[in-house]
């Protein structure tokens, strides 16, 4: 799990875990989503927070709901 600091809130994501389970590379995921590999790396590392449309695309790609991919927890 990686954390994104947005003000006082943290946003975890399971992209790396789901990607590995699917057996695809960052490059393949990036190409499928129409973004650069650097963007996927940044999201996985937690240095960049994906926009809502991209979060939707990522969740749809893995066949999961947004809540299952991006876990929002307040006041951690």
């Amino acid at each position, binding site marked *: 799990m990686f954390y994104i600091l947005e003000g006082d809130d943290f946003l975890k994501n399971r992209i790396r875990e789901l990607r590995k389970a699917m057996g695809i590379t960052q490059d393949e995921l990036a190409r499928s989503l*129409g973004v*650069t590999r650097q*963007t996927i790396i940044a999201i996985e590392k937690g240095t960049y927070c994906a926009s809502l449309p991209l979060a939707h695309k990522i969740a749809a790609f893995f066949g999961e709901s947004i809540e299952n991919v991006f876990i929002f927890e307040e006041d951690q």
Partner: protein
Amino acid sequence: MEFKKKMKINMIYYALLVVIGAALAVLQFTGYMPEVFLSFGCAYAACGLAMLIKNGRILSDPEKLKKLEIESTDERNIMIYNKAIRWAYLIFVYAAAAAIMILEFVGMKEAAVTVALTLCALFVLYIICYAVLKAKG
């Protein structure tokens, strides 16, 4: 709009740039324009031609086109681009403010006033852009 279509429209603009540049150069050679327009014309034509060749190559290669499309539309790249503009704006404002004080201090009053007016124009532009963007929602 489809990215390929956008690039094709850009090709028309680049072609226009070449035509304008060549026209300026020719008009200068024939004595209808001041000398300064020769450099403008050559610069326009050269830039337009270079971009035409570059875009032509990209359009003929689907792999390169896809790569460019991803790089141009990638949200993180756009965020970095916008962030760079914000940083450049802030640095310019601080540098101009410092320049005004230094120019005033060394007695170059006219230059200081020019920089100050440029800074004022920038602030007015900022306020207008802010109001327009806010109204757009």
